[in-house]
């Protein structure tokens, strides 16, 4: 091999993959001037795929963005060294699909229900949009800003859904809605959950829709079931009675029933930002709070079974990875850390992976479980600078791709919530809601 010029320099390369397109393990001599595109073509030709599949290439935990030679020169890797390159199916550049304008900030967006978007806004309303960007319903559930909502999954095929929403007014509410575009659309608040003495920060349900978890600024986590009580379980406070009565009216039946928690999880010493159920186990919950801890709970007994303590990382959001073994937690020191739930309890637990952001990450969405295995490493984070980033946990140095929402306005506008299902990412925040298409192109939902 006469390497007379730089262009002729070749690197010995071994390709590995976890995708469905494995190459025979064999050493390739790759010219240093090759980029992702040539490598992707090489894999496609070597496998003689009928339909070209674009690939991205991970070299030592980094996605190759320059030529191979430049990468090696930057890292100081000699041309004799054999590189192990892992290739993954590349993510298509995100595309903006639609924008759902709101008058106030959107604190939470949910696109778990196919064909619908549910948003909770700081004006206390819950809004329902369909994919045609048309506003179906505006439900004034709360008088105070609502901070979180979740659509309780139900097995029934009917159009009625139960929505749980949390608010600054110290309650969470269960609202029954009827999903239809016609005039039959209706909403009725069935119950209000009374436990907390500080604004609620999140409400989540388990995958079967039987239980709810609320987290609040008072450091408590409430564990509730989704059944609607027939009578008030919590007595009405004297000071608010008159107001409630005036607001709700004299109809005692339509007034939401006051519901008490099944259990109260007390262990956090500061505000709790979010509490979620572990997907595999309906009885186990994970929560993160401003006391820099990630706690695992046995919800039935109401005890904290495991505590992961980080050092000065007030956590803002937590999400479970599809693998079920670890959680991601976003903290105000501008990192998103991955913690292994199985780790033994110790003074300070080092994170498995740390993703550095340039602004405070406020929300995390893991890839939907329906996605193929290749994307189980991908997560989406939204940050206060208005940038939504798509990460691959195998490449932690930088985000795979990122895009800025609400470009029309100058300055960063905070992203407060992201939700990712079926290639659709709903982004809620300061500028309303935007819907982007992220993921495989052929799996896109027609809009």
């Amino acid at each position, binding site marked *: 091999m006469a390497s007379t010029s730089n262009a002729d320099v070749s690197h010995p390369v071994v390709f590995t993959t976890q995708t469905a397109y494995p190459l025979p393990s064999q050493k390739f001599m790759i010219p240093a001037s090759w980029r992702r595109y040539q490598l992707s073509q090489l894999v496609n030709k070597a496998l003689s795929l009928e339909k070209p599949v674009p690939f991205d290439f991970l070299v030592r935990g980094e996605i190759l963005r320059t030529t191979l030679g430049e990468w090696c020169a930057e890292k100081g890797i000699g041309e004799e060294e054999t590189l192990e390159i892992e290739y993954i199916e590349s993510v298509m550049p995100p595309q903006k699909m639609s924008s759902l304008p709101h008058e106030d*900030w959107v*604190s939470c967006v949910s696109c778990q229900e196919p064909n619908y978007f549910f948003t909770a806004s*700081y004006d206390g309303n819950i809004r329902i949009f369909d994919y045609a960007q048309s506003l179906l319903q505006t439900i004034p559930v709360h008088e*105070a*800003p609502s901070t979180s909502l979740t659509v309780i999954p139900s097995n029934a095929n009917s159009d009625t859904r139960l929505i749980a929403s949390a608010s*600054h*007014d*110290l309650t969470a509410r269960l609202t029954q809605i009827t999903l239809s575009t016609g005039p039959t659309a209706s909403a009725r608040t069935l119950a209000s959950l009374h436990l907390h*003495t*500080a*604004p609620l920060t999140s409400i989540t349900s388990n995958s079967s829709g039987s239980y709810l978890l609320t987290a609040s*600024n008072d450091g408590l986590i409430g564990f509730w079931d989704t059944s609607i009580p027939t009578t008030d379980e919590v007595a009405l*406070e*004297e*000071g*608010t009675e008159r107001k409630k009565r005036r607001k709700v009216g004299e109809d005692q039946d339509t007034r939401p029933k006051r519901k008490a928690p099944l259990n109260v999880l007390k262990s956090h010493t500061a*505000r709790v930002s979010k509490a979620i159920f572990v997907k595999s186990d309906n009885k186990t919950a994970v929560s993160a709070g401003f006391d820099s801890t990630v706690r695992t709970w046995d919800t039935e007994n109401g005890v904290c079974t495991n505590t992961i303590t980080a050092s*000065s990382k007030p956590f*803002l959001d937590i999400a479970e990875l599809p693998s079920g073994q670890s959680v991601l937690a976003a903290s*105000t020191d*501008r990192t998103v850390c991955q913690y292994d739930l199985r780790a033994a309890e110790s003074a300070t637990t080092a994170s498995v992976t740390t993703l550095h952001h340039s*602004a*405070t990450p*406020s929300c995390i969405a893991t890839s939907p479980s329906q996605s193929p295995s290749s994307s189980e490493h991908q997560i989406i984070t939204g940050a*206060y600078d208005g940038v939504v980033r798509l990460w691959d946990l195998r490449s932690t140095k930088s985000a795979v791709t990122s895009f800025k929402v609400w470009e029309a306005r100058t300055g960063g506008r*905070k992203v*407060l919530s992201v939700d990712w299902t079926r290639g659709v990412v709903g982004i809620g925040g300061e500028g309303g809601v935007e819907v982007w298409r992220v993921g495989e192109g052929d799996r896109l939902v027609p809009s």
Partner: protein
Amino acid sequence: MAATEAGRSSRKRKTAVEEPLNTESTFPQNVGLEMESDAEGDDEGAASDDGEVDEFPEIDTRSDTEDEDYESNSEDEEEEDEEEDEEDQEETESEEDDDLHIFPKAKTVVSDITGQPKRVYPPIEPDYDSDSSTEDAPNRVGDIPMHWYDDLPHVGYDMNGRKVLRPARGDELDKFLETIDDPNSWTAAFDKKAQMDKPLSSEELDLIRRLQENENPDEQYDPYEPTVEWFTGKGKEEVMPLSSAPEPKRRWVPSKWEKQKVMKIVRAIRQGRIVPNKPRTTDDQSRFYPIWNEEPSNQPAPLPAPKPRLPTHAESYNPPEEYLPTEEERKAWEETEKEDRDRDFLPQKYSALRLVPAYNQFIQERFSRQLDLYLAPRIQRTKLRIDPNSLIPKLPSPNSLKPFPVYRSLTVSHEKGRARCISVSPDGIWVASGDESGSVSLWETIVGKVVKKWKFKGKIGAVEWCPRTDVCFLVVTIEEQLHFLIPPNLPVAILKATQALLAPANMPPPPAVPSPVKWVSTSAAASTSDSPILTVSLPSGSGLPKQLAWHKRGDYLATVASGEGQGGVWIHQLSRRHSQAPFKKIKGSVQLVLFHPTKPHFFVATQRYVRMYNLAEQKLLKTLMPGIKWISSMDVHPLGDHLIVGGYDRKLCWFDLELSDKPYKILRIVGARKMVDWTSPTVITGEADVFGKLIFSLFGLYVWEIFQTSDFDWSIITGKRKFVWPLILSVICPDRLDYLSFGDNADRLHCTVYIRLLQVTGNLAILTASTSLMIRTIALWERQIRIVIPLCVLCLAHWVILCRGMFIVHAVYSPETKSCIVTFTDHVFLNVGFFATMGFDFIILCFTVTALWKQRTHSDLWRLLFQDGLMYFCLTFFCNAVPAILNVINLNPLMNVIATIPAATVSTIASCRLVMRLQEFNQTKADVYVHSSQVLTNNNGTRGGPIRLAKRQTMSPAPQVMVTTDRIVVENYTPTSIGSAKTARKMMMDLEAMKEYSDTEYDRESYVAGS
């Protein structure tokens, strides 16, 4: 050496005998053989026994035999005697003829036996000093036992070696017969050597007789000699004979004076004035001490001399080949400095040790070694081996200093007014902020979402949350009022407690003394979170409370208002709904107040000091002096023993309250200094402002100058002076600068015209100034053609360049700054213009200096002239250099031209003055200069007074006397002036009266008095 000398001398003696005498006389002169000649002379001296001996007694002492020893022992004496020996030499030479007879003269006779001629010396005649010549004993056998000769017929040998025959001896009978025959025979004695009886002489007999009679054997000895009177006798009496007086009494009586002295000492000892024994001090006690008990000295032991390095193969005289330097190494070694060489020799190879030359560096090495020892004594030097990194203070890792702000997490904006105050709720969830437009926002800390807004009239002075946790409200101050607000969405229990606190159902009893502060609260039932539940109205005129300070327990609240009276400090108690002013009067304006968290102490910060009061005892505890010019902030540690005070002068003082009233530590904020951004519009606007003001001030200066020199113009206009064409320049110069100020009020639409005009006039000023200076130079050179022509050519080129440069500046009117803004300048061409001006000025400066230098010999006024004239030239040159330099730097379009106007003004003034001097120079043929700089410096202490300059020219009809005077009249209006009188007085100062003395002497004093 002695042997060789002896040999030489003997040889010499032979040659001296054999050689003819003439050679002998020349011999000692041609070679330095003084030794030989010396020895020869000695011999001669020893051999000869003439009258010369007396003159050289030292020679006389040397015998022949001693000569060798003498020479070998005392060479020094030889050298000392050299000169004398030379004198000997000459004298002995002169005596040679007489001395020759001392040697036995050899006669050459023909031998009888061999028939050959032989040298025969005459027999030695025994002389006085010849040894053994006094005896004529024939037998020479010496002192041997004579019985050796008993059997032989002879008894010994005589002097010539002949046998001395035994004399015939008779038998006993013959002896007897002889005694009978000779009566004297008994006086004979047997001579052993002669083996015969020899008759004794009469002297011998006499000697024998004396010995027998025990008499002195010496015949001459007289035992009865007459007495020689040495000490006695007539005239030899002793003058001072020993006294036989009896011993005086004092010899044996104890001395009275000694006793007195002893008694004095004894008395002193008794009285203790003299301590008999030296008092035992600690030194005496420690006279015996264990010598190893001391701590070993910290001083290092004296440094041993450094050991010389052992020689290696390279130092060998015959090193292996690999040690020999190559040609390049040798060259490099030779080229390096001696101090920089890594070794001070080059290995050299010699096949044998005997071929090694002398060490050529020996002297140098020894000398440098001596220098080392002399100049650098071997003391231990503590070398400063400091790692420069260790000098850098160890900064803590940033991680250990966390938390500190590293990035801006979120922004909450108040659109309408500037946010002036902020407060975080005790639980940290909410933040309240107030702005100048009167709105108070409540927003979430972590999200930054404003959830509630209150609107008030007027500025918000301060916002503070109540530090209690069982109730939740915040206090907002506006002008003369305090509003208590309850945030929304409170839990019912807290809400009720808050309402009960702020709007109690049962009002507490009003205080005995009615307070001017009104507490008004809405009822708890009617209260909402939209309006304040409680309003506290301060007395009118108290102004806006700019600070709120809560006590830690949340019952007391202190406000500092900016208004008049009581320092504006009020302390409000919530539970009693009562307000009081703690201070009747307080020194200075109160900036901040603060409650001590645990004790009933109260901190009050005025502009400079922090005072600490005890509220319970109502007294001042201490005054802390932070040393800050203006205190801006203050806080106390939650435990209450530390206080930090911040100031507007970037200082932070940390007080430990239990220690002194001086700061325990002062921390300073060191900010990075920023370079000016020359292209930013704000900077350019500021420059434009400066530019306009500069033009105005220069215009004022110029008007003053015109006024001052107006008589010159007037004299031209009225024709008093003869008009010469160069004067037109000096008339033009002042007039066109007037446009500068008119232009400033120019119509805003004609901005470009204005700037053009500015540029035209500026360039014209520079041109005329330079040309005036040139004319001056030409005048100094007395209009020599070789000077005039090149200067005129240069001047023309200068004119062309500057005339082109009048039209390169562009400007537009900026409505924001209400002035013209220079938008574009062709700075390359500006450069050309400025450097042309600079160069031209420099050239004429050089010419002037040269001309002045030439005139130096015949002008007494040269010094004055030099200073005065050259000052203007230099001024012009440097003034033009400033805009040129600014232009090269090219900061922005305005900075390129900002210095042109001052340059033009100064150079115009300078050149005009020069031209006027030139005019006088032409008229009077004498240089008379007035130092305008003295005008300002001469008035002692009356700088502020108005200065009126009166200038008068006096022209004398006599052609010889020229007097020009400048007089300055200073009217001193300051009646409090120390030296002068109470009344204003006029000071007249004769600045300068330069006179050219000729036949008539001018009396200056009388002139001053007369005027």
